C-alpha cells in the first residue's frame, strides 16, 4: 500500500484571533498554493503558531474565513479537517508502539486493522524506519521520534501537512539533515506544507515562499530571494539576514538607479529593488553585514571612515563591531588571513548587492 497525495491550497481571508482583549493574529490574509512549502517566520509571540493552529483547527478564528482546498473550514474542528501536524514535542503516544502510533489516525478513522498496519509500515518505510514498528517511542532517539511523527502525519494523506518548529529539539547537525529530508519528502510527494519556525536560515533553506509575521500581522510574503533582496520594511530587512539600519535620504530615482544620500556620500542602489511607491525623502539604508568591505586606506571616494571596536575570529569568517559617524555597524568579512585588529581606523565601503532601501 502506498502513500498518495491529496495536496490542497490554503487561504486565509481577514482572519483574526483574539484572546479576551489581546489580539494574537490580526486581520491576516494570504493564500498558499497546493504543493508548496510555505514557512511562517517571525519572532516568538508574533502569531505564527496561532496561525498554524488555526489551519489545524486547534484554534478557532475569532473572525474571518479559512479555506482549505476551496472549502470553508472556519468552524470545522481539528477532528474533521483533513490536515495533520508534526508537533514540536513530537507528541508520540508513549503507551503505544511506533507502529500503533503511525496507524493511530487510520484506526480511529475506521480503517481495518490489517490495512492500517500495512499502510503504517509503508509510512515508516518512507521515513527510513522500517523495522522499528514494535519499539516504544521512548526507545528511539530524538531524530527517529521526529521521523515517526512525520510518518504518522503522512499516512493520513492530508490535504495540508503542518510542522510546528519541528527541528527545535534536535542538535545543529541533525537539524540540517532533517531539514533536507523533510524538504525532499515534501517535494517528492508534492505535499502542501506549512512550516513554523523562528530560525530565518531554516526558513530560507526549505521554503517555496515565506510569510514573515510580526506583532500579529503579516510583515511580508515572498520567496526567500524576494525577502532577502527586497525587504519591504526595516523589520524584515533586519530579521532576514540581519542588516545595519542607517538613516539616509532618497534623493532621486531614474535610469534604473535610485540615489541615496548617506552622510556626505551618495550611493547608487538598483531601482528595481526599491519599492515603487517609496517617496523621496527620509529612508533607512539596510546594509547586510557581509556587504561592508573594510579597506586600509582612509578618506577616499565613497567610503565611510570607521574605527574597529571589536574583532572576533570565528574560523570561517571575522565579525567586526565598528564605530562610525553613521552609528555602530556590524560587519562580516571572510578574510580571516589578514584581519583588521581592534582599535584601527579604516574605510568601510558598501557593496552594491547587499544594500537595500526601506521606509523609516
Amino acid at each position: 500500500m502506498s502513500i498518495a497525495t491529496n495536496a490542497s491550497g490554503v487561504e486565509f481571508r481577514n482572519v483574526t484571533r483574539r484572546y479576551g482583549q489581546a489580539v494574537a493574529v490580526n486581520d491576516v490574509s494570504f493564500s498558499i498554493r497546493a504543493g508548496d512549502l510555505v514557512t511562517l517566520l517571525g519572532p516568538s509571540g508574533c502569531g505564527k503558531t496561532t496561525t498554524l493552529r488555526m489551519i489545524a483547527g486547534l484554534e478557532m478564528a475569532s473572525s474571518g474565513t479559512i479555506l482549505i482546498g476551496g472549502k470553508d473550514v472556519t468552524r470545522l474542528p481539528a477532528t474533521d479537517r483533513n490536515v495533520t501536524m508534526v508537533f514540536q514535542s513530537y507528541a508520540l503516544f508513549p503507551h503505544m508502539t511506533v507502529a500503533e502510533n503511525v496507524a493511530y489516525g487510520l484506526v480511529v478513522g475506521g480503517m481495518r486493522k490489517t490495512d492500517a498496519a500495512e499502510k503504517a509500515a509503508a509510512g515508516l518505510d518512507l521515513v527510513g524506519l522500517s523495522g522499528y514498528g514494535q519499539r516504544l517511542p521512548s526507545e528511539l532517539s530524538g531524530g527517529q521520534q521526529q521521523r515517526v511523527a512525520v510518518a504518522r502525519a503522512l499516512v493520513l494523506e492530508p490535504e495540508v501537512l503542518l510542522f510546528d518548529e519541528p527541528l527545535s529539539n534536535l542538535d545543529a547537525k541533525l537539524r540540517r539533515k532533517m531539514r533536507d529530508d523533510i524538504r525532499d519528502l515534501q517535494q517528492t510527494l508534492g505535499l502542501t506544507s506549512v512550516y513554523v519556525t523562528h530560525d530565518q536560515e531554516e526558513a530560507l533553506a526549505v521554503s517555496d515562499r515565506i510569510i514573515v509575521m510580526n506583532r500579529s500581522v503579516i510583515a511580508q510574503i515572498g520567496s526567500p530571494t524576494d525577502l532577502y533582496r527586497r525587504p519591504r520594511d526595516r523589520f524584515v530587512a533586519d530579521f532576514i539576514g540581519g542588516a545595519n539600519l542607517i538613516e539616509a535620504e532618497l534623493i532621486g530615482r531614474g535610469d534604473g538607479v535610485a540615489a541615496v544620500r548617506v552622510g556626505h556620500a551618495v550611493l547608487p542602489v538598483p531601482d528595481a529593488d526599491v519599492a515603487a511607491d517609496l517617496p523621496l525623502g527620509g529612508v533607512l539604508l539596510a546594509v547586510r553585514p557581509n556587504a561592508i568591505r573594510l579597506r586600509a586606506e582612509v578618506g577616499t571616494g565613497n567610503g565611510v571612515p570607521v574605527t574597529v571596536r571589536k574583532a572576533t575570529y570565528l574560523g570561517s569568517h571575522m565579525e567586526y563591531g565598528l564605530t562610525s559617524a553613521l552609528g555602530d555597524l556590524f560587519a562580516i568579512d571572510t578574510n580571516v588571513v589578514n584581519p583588521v585588529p581592534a582599535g584601527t581606523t579604516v574605510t568601510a565601503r558598501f557593496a552594491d548587492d547587499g544594500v537595500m532601501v526601506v521606509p523609516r
Partner: protein
Amino acid sequence: MRHSSALWVVLGWVGFALLPWFSSAATQLSVNPPGAGLAGSALIDGLANGRWWLLPLLAPLVAGVGAVALPRHHSLHPWLLLVGGAAGLLWTVVQGFAIGLNGWNWPGLAALFGPLPQGQGAFGLGAALTMTAFLFQTTGGFAGLGCMKGDRFTAGAIGLVLLSIALFVFLPVGFVLSSAGDSGAGGFSPLALWTRLTAPDIWRLNCLYENRSCGVVWNSVFLATMTGLLTTLLGLAFALVAVRTGFRAKGLLRMLTVLPIITPPFVISLAVILLFGRTGTVTLALADWFGIPPSRWIYGLPGVLLTQTLAFTPIAFLVMIGVVQGIGPSLEEAAQTLRASLWVTFRTVTWPMMRPGVANAFLIGFIESLADFGNPLILGGNYDVLSTKIYFAVVGAQNDPGRAAALGIILLGLCLGAFWLQRRWLGTKSYATVSGKGDNGVPPALPTGVRVAAFATALPWAVFTFILYGMVLFGGFTENWGRNNSLTLRHYRNAFDLTWGEHGLIWAGRAWDSLFTTIQVAGLSAPLTAAVGLMTAYLLVRQRFAGQSAFEFFTMLSFAIPGTVIGVSYILAFNQPPVELTGTMAILILCIVFRNMPVSIRAGVAAMSQIDRSLDESSLTLGAGNLQTIRRVILPLLRPAIVASLVYSFVRAITSISAVIFLVSPEHELATAYIVGRVEQGDFGLAIAYSSALIVLMGAVIALIQLVVGERRIGRRTTDRLALQEKPV
C-alpha cells in the same frame, strides 16, 4: 454530529410521551394518575388529567424536531436546539418547583392564577430523561454556534457537570438557607432567619464570667483552634523527624499517614473510652494504684480534643512533610556558607520558609475539627459543638429543621471562611522551592534543641496512637472491657454469624445487612465519583472556555461544606417533590459521590497536568474526536490516577459518617451509622468488633490494590497525598 442531536430529540419525546413522568414512590401514589406506562406519561397526563402545565413542554420538543429536520449547516439549526432546550429545561424546573403535592407551592401564585384542581408528584423516569435530553440539546446548540471549538462532547460534559452540581450541591444548600428563614407558615421571613441566627444559646459568653457553658459557636471555635494548634505542632514534629533526621523506622511513621484513610472517624473515640472511660484500663489502674476514683472527665472538651488531635495529626503530618521536603537544601547550605550556625539557619531560613505551610496545616486542622461529627457525638458529653447540635436539632426531640439549618449556615460560614483563608495562603504565600532544576544539596542537621523537641513530641504520640489502634483491634475480643476482660468471640459471632438453614447459608449476624449495603453503596459510588471527578478534571485541564475559573470554584466548593450541613441539606431538599429521594439508596450514593468528587478532581487534575497537551492535539489532528482521544490516549495514561481515585472513593464511602447519618433508613443502613447506633446503645463490644473488621477489610483492599498496581507507581504518591490533603470535611 447530526445524529446525536436527533437521538436526544427522540429521547426527549420518549421521556415526555411514553415513560411515566412522575416517580412512583409510595408517598405520591394518591396524586398519581391511575395506571403506569403510557397512561402516566406527561403527554397523556397533561391532556387527560388536567395537569395542563405539562403541555407547554410540547413547544421546545417540536422545536427540537424542527432543528433536526432542517438541512445540514442551516444557521437556524443550532439556535432552535439552544433556545428549545433551554426553554424546555427552564419550564420543567419552574413548574416542578412551583407546583407541589397540593397545588401551588407559593401562596402568591395561587392568588395570581387561581387554585389548581390537583397537585403533582416528584419527577420520575420520564421527567429525568426529558430533562437530560433538553440539557444535551442546549449544549449541542451551543456547540453548533461555535462555542467550545464546536465540540459537542465538551459542551455536553460541561452542561452535565454544571447541572448535577447545581442539583446536588447548590440546590440543597439553597434549601438550608431558605429553611433557616422559614417563618413557620411556609414562607420566608428575614426576621425568623435573624432570630435563629442570633439565638443566645449559639452566641452567649456566659462561661467567661459564670459557671455556665458558652454558646455553641464559641465551643466549636475554641475546640477547632486547639485541635488546629495541637495537630500542627505534632505534625511538624513528625515531619521533621521523618524528613530531617536519621530516624530508622520511617516506614512506621508512613503507616501513620494511611491510618486515617481506613479508619472511620469515631473509632478513635471508642479506643479512648477503652483507655480513659470509667472502666478504662488507665482509669482502673489509677484507681488501683493511687486511689483516684474513676470519673467521667473524658466526656467533654478533654476527650474530644484528645481524639480529634489523635485523628487529625496524621493529616497535619502529610501536609507538613510536603512543606519540609519542599525547602530546597541549597538555600540552607547557602546560609551556612554565609557563616550561619545550625540554629541561626533554622531560625532565619528554614522556619520562615515553613511558616505558610504551618499556617495551612493549622487551617486544615481547624476545618477538620469544625466538621468532625463522630468524635463529639460519642465523647462530647455536655460540651456541645455545631455539628452535633445540628444532628440533635434534626433527629432529637426538638426536630426543628429551621434551627438545624441556621446552625448549618453558621458552620458553613466558618468552614468557608477558613477554606478561603487556606486557599489564599496556598495561592500567594507558597515558598516551595522544588523546581525542575536539580537541587543536589544535602539538608543540614536540625539544631539539637529542635531535634530533641521533635523526637520527644513525635515518638510518644506515635506510640500512643499505635496503642490505641491495638486496643481497637484487641477490644473486640474481650467480654466486657474493664469489667470482665476474658477473651471471647461473642461480639464477632454476634456481628458476623453464619449458619446453615434449610434454604442454605443464612447471614445470621446483625452486621451483615449494613455491611452489604455499605459495600454496595461504596461499590456503586466509587466508579461514579471517579468518572465525574475525572471528567471534570479533563474539562478543567484540557479545555478552555469562558467562565472556567468560576466553574472550578463551584466544583471545589463542596470541599468546604461540612458533612453535617450536607446531610441536613439533603433531607431538606430531597424529601419532597420535584426531586424526592429520601429513604432510597440513590440519595446515599449521590451524597457520597458529590462529597468525594473534589478529591477525585484533584487527583485527576494532578495526573492530567503531567500529560503533555500536544498528545491530545496530535490525536485530534489525526482525526480522532474528543471522545476517542480520551479513550485511546488520555485514559490509558491516567490508569494509575484512576485506580487511586477508585480506591480512595471506595474507602471514603465506607468510612464516612457525618453526612450519611442523616440519610440512612432502616432498609438502607450503613456500617458507620449502625456502629454509632450501637455505641449510643452502650453496646461497645459489637461496635468495636465491627469497627476493627472494617479497618482490616479496608487495609486489605488497599494492600491488594497496591499489590496489583504496585508496578505502575507513576505519580501515585502525589495523587495519594493530594487526595488526603484536600479531603472533604
